[in-house]
């Protein structure tokens, strides 16, 4: 027997604007605190985002609500903070929408960050609570459903989410990764209900709506409502980034026409629009591990996360370690936004997010800029960190100061952007690569010249193989970290 089509749809809109780092080099400037670490056009870019994306999106939401539909909002703390700071009309509109009885605001990390991947969960708890407090203050209701980021495919996280009082967690359901499971049912992970976004139907709107080469182009509200009604499941969860509401001329008009016509089209197919917290009551269809939803990384150190490439991995390690070296917590937290990591990948944006393709060079340039910013943040705080030597040796290094592993003929493909990463890479550096650098004295020269640790430099010069050196450096890192605490 085949399952009947869905009778309900849960539409979600996502509003978020991160603080991106400045990609143009500006080493000549002295480190300062605060916003100067981030893009110099931040305010202007945010205003443009407001007028081009958020305003049309809010218009559509209000029309959606007027026609009796329900909608969930996912607004990051950073977006709310910038909106309110800007004292714009959009802020009032957003607060009004959040207070509407047919609107549910989802919980998330304040900075929409990768804090859920850190080895300790205190930072994650802090950011989730801060966001929930902010939403409660504005909407009068505390979020009940937590929304995971595209990096958080980590089952142990569900324990923390449940402890924080959430009823359920939202994650992403790619048809082809779920294999036999359907994203249109409630599942359970460690006793926490899991709701899955239907990535295919979300991307039909987010990616394919304007695509004239799509065999189902043009997409109309009636057509979409029919697909929803014919898709088996209890409830279809759709998520759309506000960014996809930006467009000009006839494109924007046709999108608006589609979106605003959707509630009526759904209604005519007997599909009701519902809120996530009401869907949670449906009985779970089975047990699910969050790891099965994402593409698990192939490294045990960072397993169970959505981190996909070497650049993201290096940046993540530097970011987590910087927690002990940056006293300017606000800047450190802004650097945790997932957007930074998405920009270090060649492709990003799926499951309702706008799709972006970058060249290898663009991804690498952003990575370099990110590490430069992190390094500048650390440098700006170095006077407050004791002992100075340990902080200097453990700091994050931008690519021009990193250790790039080579063999006689070629670059191995990986570089150490901190002493800790150096020890991790030494664990698998081939013997010939180790010999090549050791014979030239590269290791001790780099450790003395860049990290200023002459004790370690002397000892590493005596090492016979990469295993011995890895052990030595790991021990040294442990001691230096201990001194910092």
């Amino acid at each position, binding site marked *: 027997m085949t399952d009947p089509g869905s009778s309900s749809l849960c539409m979600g809109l996502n509003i978020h604007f991160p603080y991106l780092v400045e990609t143009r080099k500006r080493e000549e400037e002295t480190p300062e605190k605060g916003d100067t670490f981030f893009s110099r056009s931040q305010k202007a870019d945010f205003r443009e985002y407001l007028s081009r994306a958020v305003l049309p999106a809010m218009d559509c939401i209000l029309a959606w609500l007027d026609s009796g539909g329900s909608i969930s909002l996912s607004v990051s703390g950073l977006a709310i903070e910038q909106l309110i700071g800007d004292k714009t009309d959009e802020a009032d509109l957003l607060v009004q929408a959040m207070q509407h009885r047919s609107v549910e605001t989802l919980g998330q990390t304040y900075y929409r960050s990768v804090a859920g991947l850190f080895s300790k969960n205190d930072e994650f708890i802090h950011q989730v609570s801060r966001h929930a407090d902010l939403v409660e203050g504005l909407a009068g209701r505390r979020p009940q459903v937590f929304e995971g980021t595209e990096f958080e495919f980590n089952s142990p996280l569900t324990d923390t989410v449940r402890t924080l009082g959430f009823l359920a967690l939202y994650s992403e359901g*790619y048809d*082809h*990764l779920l*294999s036999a499971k359907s994203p249109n049912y409630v599942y359970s992970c460690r006793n926490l209900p899991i709701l899955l976004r239907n990535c295919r139907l979300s991307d039909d709107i987010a990616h394919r709506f304007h695509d004239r080469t799509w065999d189902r182009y043009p997409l109309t509200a009636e057509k979409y409502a029919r697909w929803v009604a014919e898709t088996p499941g209890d409830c279809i969860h759709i998520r759309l980034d506000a960014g996809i509401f930006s467009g000009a001329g006839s494109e924007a008009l046709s999108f608006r026409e589609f979106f605003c016509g959707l509630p009526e089209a759904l209604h005519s197919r007997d599909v009701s629009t519902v809120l996530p917290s009401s869907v949670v009551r449906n009985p779970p269809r089975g047990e699910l591990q969050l790891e099965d939803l994402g*593409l698990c*990384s*192939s*490294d*045990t*150190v*960072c*397993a169970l996360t959505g*981190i*996909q*490439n*070497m650049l*993201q*991995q290096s940046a993540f390690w530097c970011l987590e370690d910087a927690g002990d070296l940056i006293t300017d917590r606000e800047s450190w937290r802004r650097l945790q936004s997932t957007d930074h990591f998405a920009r270090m990948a*060649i*492709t990003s944006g*799926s499951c309702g997010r706008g799709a972006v*393709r970058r*060249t*290898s060079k663009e991804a*690498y340039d952003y990575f370099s800029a990110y590490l430069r910013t992190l390094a500048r943040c650390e440098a700006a705080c170095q006077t407050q960190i004791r002992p100075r030597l340990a902080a200097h040796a453990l700091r994050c290094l931008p690519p021009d100061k990193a250790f790039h592993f080579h063999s006689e*003929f*070629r670059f*191995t*493909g*990986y570089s150490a952007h901190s002493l800790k990463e150096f020890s991790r*890479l030494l*664990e*698998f*550096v*081939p013997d010939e*690569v180790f010999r090549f650098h050791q014979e030239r004295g590269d290791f001790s020269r780099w450790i003395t010249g860049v990290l200023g640790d002459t004790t370690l430099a002397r000892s590493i010069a005596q090492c016979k193989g990469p295993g011995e050196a890895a052990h030595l450096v790991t021990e040294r890192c442990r001691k230096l970290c201990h001194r910092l605490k």
Partner: protein
Amino acid sequence: MPPLKIAQFCWESLHATREGGLSPAATHLAEVLGTTHEVHFFTRGDGPDRCIGGNTYHFCQPEGETILDYCHDMSMKLLRKFHESDTPPFDIIHFHDWHCIDALGELRDRTTVMSYHSTEYGRNGGNFSDSPEFHAISAKEWSGGHQAGHVTTVSKHTKTEIMWLYGIPEQKVTVIPNGIYPEHYCLPLDPGPVKKRYGIHPLAPLVFFIGRLVYQKGPDLLVDAIPQILKRRWDVQFIIAGKGEMRRELEERCRTLPVRFTGYISDEEYLQLLNACDLVVIPSRNEPFGLVLTEAWSAERCVVATDVGGLSENIDNFVDGIKVPVRADSLAWGISYIIEDPVRIRAMGLAGKRKVLSRFNWHDTGRMMEQVYTKVIKSRGDEARRKEVRAG
């Protein structure tokens, strides 16, 4: 169907001397047939004849200066072994590839089947050659196809190839693809430690080639594609596994490229690499079936392959793999295109696994082969009756 007494002639098997993809194909077929029939497997190897997995293996150790002398000697030695076991007589005598064709010549009045797993033309990269060896082997393939009671090929492509190369009539040829045991190839492992063993960063995308380093398999096309791939994505790493005449030249060309040549690797190492890599590339110039394809799919790996032979027939383009023309720049395009999209890589690997489970299982292959045997026995019976009527 009553149990048959079946003889299989193949110059390699999984239980003794093993060369390439022919040994698993022939051995697993014998195993699946052995569940309902009496199967004797005549092959190369040391030691006395013995029973393995319910089938009797008869071994010989051939000698000869050239490959042709060697195979002739093998055919004659196996033929002697065959006669020793021919009471009661075998119902079906099945030959795999050309190596034992001289035995087929001797047994041409019996009920025989010949399977083409490849052709000499295909092994030569889809080219003719003037070498005496090429002509001699082609002649053996020609005579085997004509003398055998029926012929099977592993793909439609090979069927067409032997029809135009050797003039084998279409009605005499049945296509029976190889099966696979997917569970033998899928390991639940963390790719990180495997990549680290080769000095590769756990998060660097790994492209894997396995096969003989000979012109037919196209490793040179992959090597030519690498600089173009690196232009688009600098962190891709490559492992080229296998041995062959092109290795030295290829290694020289890859000196400054992120490529590791492993030479021959054990089955265990092969499974580890297959399950640890991100992408399997099959750049063959000619591929009758492409066993690596079903092995990669069994391990849920995405495949970029050239649009030839069995690869062309079995891959649904952009669904469970990517097919490209036999050119280095096309190969570079295919690899660069898919390596940038980890979600689709995973999806194509899973789609491949589903296809393997539904279309390439040994049970079905065994049943198809049984039908061929029944058909050829029946047609010989009819022919014998016709002769009797004519004589009587």
